[in-house]
């Protein structure tokens, strides 16, 4: 039985990891998702490769290219999820730009997510102004549409968290995805503000890559690591399991 995202994250000290489906190929992707879950990842985000990943830095852009070269299609991503579900009960969340979901059909996509027990979805280019239709459908299919809050959200935050489900994705820095040496402490205050407005867990990401950064976000229920994991897979495309396991354990231990 797959647990709800809120349930696994509510105790805090959570770790959310990210892989691009099909990087370096679909069989290895399945192995890596299972390895991350077994090492202790509380939620795994599965990225769907896009031709124009404009919110992503070089690391994830290159992973998208590798996945595209491996023949990534929306159908193959669903096949991957179906296989992964036979091996792990970890909550799964898609991370994708809106267009692949829109062209598939919002409702058809959510129906597939329900069928394969994918609990949530992050679409970074579907802001508050445009998400009403999708959020209503996500509720109908009991899927979580993950809301993003940034350092610039300001007076938009109450409206955004009102629609929160699964977790609130706190974007810790400006710019695009990628690892960063120094993270601003402004995110800490942002997390406090969100925690006061909602019971939905907060997870902080964008630039988080090292165990010693985790303690900066002691008020968040989870940290999200994308690019650092993608880099491990890029460095060890066919035998990343043990490196991923070590990394997840180190990050979990850093809380």
């Amino acid at each position, binding site marked *: 039985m797959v647990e709800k995202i809120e349930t696994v994250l509510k105790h805090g000290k959570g770790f959310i990891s990210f892989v691009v489906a099909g990087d370096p190929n679909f069989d290895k992707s399945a192995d890596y998702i299972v390895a991350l879950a077994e090492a202790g990842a509380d939620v795994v985000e599965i990225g769907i490769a896009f*031709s124009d990943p*404009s*919110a992503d830095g070089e690391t994830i852009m290159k992973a998208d290219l590798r996945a595209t070269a491996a023949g990534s299609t929306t159908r193959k991503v669903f096949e991957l999820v179906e296989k992964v579900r036979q091996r792990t009960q970890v909550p799964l969340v898609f991370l994708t730009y809106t267009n692949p979901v*829109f062209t598939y059909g919002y409702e058809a996509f959510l129906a597939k997510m329900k069928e394969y027990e994918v609990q949530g979805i992050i679409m970074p*280019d579907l802001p508050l102004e445009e998400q009403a239709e999708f959020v209503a459908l996500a509720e109908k299919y009991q899927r979580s549409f993950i809301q*993003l809050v940034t350092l610039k959200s*300001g007076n938009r935050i109450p409206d955004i968290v009102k629609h929160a489900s699964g977790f609130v994705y706190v*974007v810790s820095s400006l710019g695009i995805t990628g690892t960063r040496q120094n993270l601003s402490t402004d995110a800490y205050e942002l997390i406090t503000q969100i925690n006061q407005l909602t019971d939905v867990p907060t997870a902080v990401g964008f630039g988080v890559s090292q165990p010693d950064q985790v303690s900066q976000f002691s008020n968040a229920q989870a940290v999200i690591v994308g690019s650092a994991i993608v880099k491990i897979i890029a460095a060890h495309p066919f035998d990343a399991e043990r490196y991923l396991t070590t990394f997840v354990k180190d990050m979990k231990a850093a809380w």
Partner: protein
Amino acid sequence: MTKKGYYGEYGGQFIPELLMPTVNDVADAFNHYKDDADFKSELKDLFDNYANRPSLLYHAKNMSKELGGAQIYFKREDLNHTGAHKINNVLGQALIAKRMGKSRLIAETGAGQHGVATATAAALFGMEAEIFMGKEDTDRQALNVYRMKLLGAKVHAVDTGTMVLKDAVNATFQEWTKRIDDTFYVLGSAVGPYPFPEMVKYFQSIISEEAREQFLSQTGKLPDAVIAAVGGGSNAIGAFSKFISDQDVALIGVEAAGKGIHTTQTAATITNGTQGIFHGMKSKFLQSSDGQIDPVYSISAGLDYPGIGPEHAYLADIKRAQYVPITDDEAVQAFEYIARTEGIIAAIESSHAVAYAMKIAPNMRPDQQIMVNLSGRGDKDVAAIARYKGVEINE
């Protein structure tokens, strides 16, 4: 517009939360200043005394006579300062940026005309400018790259994706998310999230505002057809705008067919595209059935774009405007033809519009009139056309 930022079902604001507050600030500023008397008079002064407006409406008599049908008129946006219609929108947006207290302009560019215009405005207003241009376009439009540098702008060659206009747009949005507070994204085409398509239309509408009056005073009537090239659609929406409610004026957008609409080397979005969400807007795009954006092709760096502005998608749906494809070959023939018959070297983008006028004019009556929006001048294209024709030139 129906609901905020929508033209029928097209438009919207599909951008990351990180940019939403600043894009909404831009929308508020635009909606305020577009009705502000001081702003309007400052812009008018810049148009008339810096950009060389109004642009001429020129009766192309040689061409009209030789084709033996409708009278062809060129709206001479190529005679504007910096050589294209792009300056109209840039001066407007840069003035808004200035009033918002921004000190740095960033912009995408395809053929380089919008980048040159943005670099020009930055020089004039004492602002920083950084221009993002696909690596492939920096190669085929090397002269414009150097012009931008002369004007004090920093030019980034974008080497991601297909290394053309759409990738330059991606890179400029990325840059904006990295540095928001002092930076204004001067979007050059009628694309992107609201308010950009509306704002670009507002500033480019000067084209049809002038043309409408010029037709009435020079010929006593409106044109029967207005023809403009369409990539993202900025010159076309400007040329159409004030004629949209004149139901007897046919509006024709000319898309780049590249090597043909039945090949993969094309950029004819309305002809071959499907609905999608990309670059901040819901519109029509050339894409796979999976929603992956297609690589596109045209000889023209300015029309080499996989989408189209949302209002064009709407005008096509309601059949108020018609969108037709013109191939590289046809555009190059038109480029050469008006050079010989009218003594005008037009941009390869604009030559697509000329090519379609050459197709329909002979089937119209001599008392009918066609306006072709000559959106830019062709100096930048001379070397590329020579290459296309297999001629070697050494500068």
